[in-house]
């Protein structure tokens, strides 16, 4: 690292090792030398959003541990009746599979975006959006099932009322994130398809040039929403 040259073509005199890291971080212009403004902003937003989800999950754990009434048994509550048998967690397994797959297609979209293959990028983003929409659809199905069985935010037939409240609140909040993601995927996919990023067409409100980086920033958000789901899945369905 000490051997690299600076941007201005002179030998770099910055120190190596940890001191080098500190020197880089505190240097002028940018603290993160490889991150654009948009990416840095998304990362910091995700950090803040992590705290939101963290608070929701901690509140859920507190409620679950401190409520005086027994908590409903997740593997019974979330089972589907298929072929005369109760299959525990089957729906949620499919949902999780769909969402994780969508992260895969998203990653491919980012890759093709950087190769400037706009039609492939757009198609993969559409596929991601489709998988996301499937996820939300299945979530709607699960909500409907639970509601017909009598689960309400304020009560349910099997135990602590907080079960319904936390379930609807947290999966609802996550589902909203997925839905917003789907909407933005569609918007960005349209721009990619139209070639906005190849022509560096300016944004209507911002008058900034469009860049393929938007695909990657979108991807950051999408992977984050996936990651959060893994935690919700573990704490809600497996605990």
């Amino acid at each position, binding site marked *: 690292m000490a051997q690299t040259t600076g941007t201005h073509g002179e030998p770099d005199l910055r120190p190596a090792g940890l001191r080098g890291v500190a020197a880089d971080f*505190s240097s002028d*212009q940018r603290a993160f030398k490889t991150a654009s403004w948009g990416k840095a902003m998304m990362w910091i937003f995700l950090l803040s959003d992590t705290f939101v989800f963290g608070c929701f999950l901690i509140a859920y754990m*507190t409620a679950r541990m401190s409520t005086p009434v027994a908590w409903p048994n997740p593997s019974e509550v979330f089972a589907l009746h298929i072929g005369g048998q109760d299959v525990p967690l089957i729906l949620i397994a499919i949902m999780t599979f769909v969402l994780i797959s969508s992260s895969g297609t998203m990653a491919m979209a980012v890759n093709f975006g950087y190769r400037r293959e706009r039609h492939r990028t757009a198609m993969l983003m559409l596929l991601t959006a489709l998988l996301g929409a499937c996820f939300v659809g299945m979530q709607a199905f699960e909500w409907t099932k639970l509601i017909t069985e009598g689960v309400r935010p304020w009560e349910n037939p099997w135990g602590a009322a907080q079960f319904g409240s936390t379930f609807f609140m947290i999966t609802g909040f996550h589902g909203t994130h997925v839905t917003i993601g789907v909407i933005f995927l569609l918007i960005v996919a349209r721009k990619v398809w139209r070639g906005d990023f190849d022509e560096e067409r300016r944004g209507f409100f911002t008058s900034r040039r469009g860049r393929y980086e938007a695909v990657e920033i979108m991807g950051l958000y999408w992977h984050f929403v996936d990651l959060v789901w893994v935690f919700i899945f573990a704490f809600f369905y497996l605990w």
Partner: protein
Amino acid sequence: MVEIPSGSAGAIPSAEVEDVELYHPKSWWTKYVFSQDAKIIAVQYSVTAISIGLVALVLSWLMRLQLAFPGYFAFIDADHYYQFITMHGMIMVIYLLTALFLGGFGNYLIPLMVGARDMVFPYANMLSYWIYLLAVLILAAGFFAPGGPTGAGWTLYPPQAVLSGTPGGKDWGILLMLSSLIVFIIGFTLGGLNYVVTVLQGRARGMTLMRMPLTVWGIFTATVMALLAFPALFVACVMMLFDRLLGTSFFMPAIVEMGEQLQHGGGSPILFQHLFWFFGHPEVYIVALPAFGIVSDLISTHARKNIFGYRMMVWAIVIIGALSFIVWAHHMYVSGMNPAFGFFFATTTLIIAIPTAIKVYNWVLTLWRGDIHLTLPMLFALAFIVTFVNGGLTGLFLGNVVVDVPLSDTMFVVAHFHMVMGVAPILVIFGAICHWYPKVTGRMLNETLGQIHFWTTFLGTYAIFFPMHYLGLLGVPRRYFEMGETAFVPPSAHTLNIFITVMALIVGAAQMVFLFNLVWSLFRGREAGGNPWRATTLEWQTPQTPPAHGNWGKELPVVYRWAYDYSVPGAAEDFIPQTVPADGGVTREVPA
């Protein structure tokens, strides 16, 4: 000793990011109203914050009138008193101080001080203001809603906040308050991300982190904290909204209201307190850190001396910011939580006093043998130190469990937090307005009016809040509509209450002088020129005053030195702006 390469050996690298193209306003509306210029957004934020702050000021008069002359003002009944307290506290802390420091000063100063053309995402920045305005309107709607605003206290503790005994609990009040907070947090996030990314990624060539003025450090750290603390309040508000609207029981235990068993059960009110104070304590520092930063710059500039221990000051800000996330339960000593927690939180609380004390020493040492100019900003800065030390010392009392338990919920607490997070930051705001007004408007504030305002405010607030310590020690409780005939409160306490109220009214009147000064000087003030205080930081080196859209001319500034080159030996002037290249003798080291 860490050497800062000050431009020697061509150490200023070339630009890493191409110059941005700004949004060009297409009409009057996009130029002045829906402006994407951080400086205009800053003024919009400030005017809105100060306007709603005036409402909170008027509420404080009404409360004081009631406390001094109980029964005299028929229109203030107990319900109204609680509503006034709640709205006063919430407006002051969130809608005035947070919005003004971060949205107002942050927007104006960050791009200018780090040498950027604007915030990194001006459009999101503009949205941030309009969402904030919406939050303010929702909050103010509480005054006109059926049942009036909520009277739950600014802490909004459930279960009482959503029960019918509390004003607004079963009406619109609490709903509007919670919605307004949620909207505020969304708006703030849009702005806050901008401030953080601008500081991290949008600085000028040569502007290293350790050359940033402390103002930027303070606002930056406070914004990061806000981005991590507001989520807890957001979650708490959403959950309480559900408790109230959907009948969930997140915070509601089994409870009997007016002889009637409610549908709630199994929830935890303590959970709310944890969420609230996980936000609430950092919030204290969210308003204090920008004040710390700004006051450091005011002192250094007006004492014509480099800030003492710059590096220490930076690290103290960062350490205070980090520690303030693990002290929240010192607000909950009487909540019945596990006593072992009390020990932990008392310890962390007292540890924060160390970096804080370092800062105070450094301010005083900066003044030591400085060339002190008693300008308005300097007067306010000095007043801040005195007030902050006072509030900080009582904080040490309250941080200890055994001392806090008897003092909790007395006027002693009211005195403490008004000193430390009410009056002290407000004094810095006044100082900062006096300091940067010439940059914003191109004119100086009127000195005589300024002096009248300063002395009345400084001495007046002391007269208001200092005696409250004594009232608290007597045992006069906080949030009481009237004391009635209480054996342990001597009649002299009532006389004292009248004195405090008279002072509060005088201080309130003095604020009108200040507002008048702001308007009057806009038209009649002396022309200021570009750099009236002969200051070093970048915002004073702009080609125009007030700075044009885009801040700098064709070329972005290049920074060669730290922000505190005052009275450098051998230099021709007693200040060297950050944009002046190093020459021989005046390259300097930053003492570690």
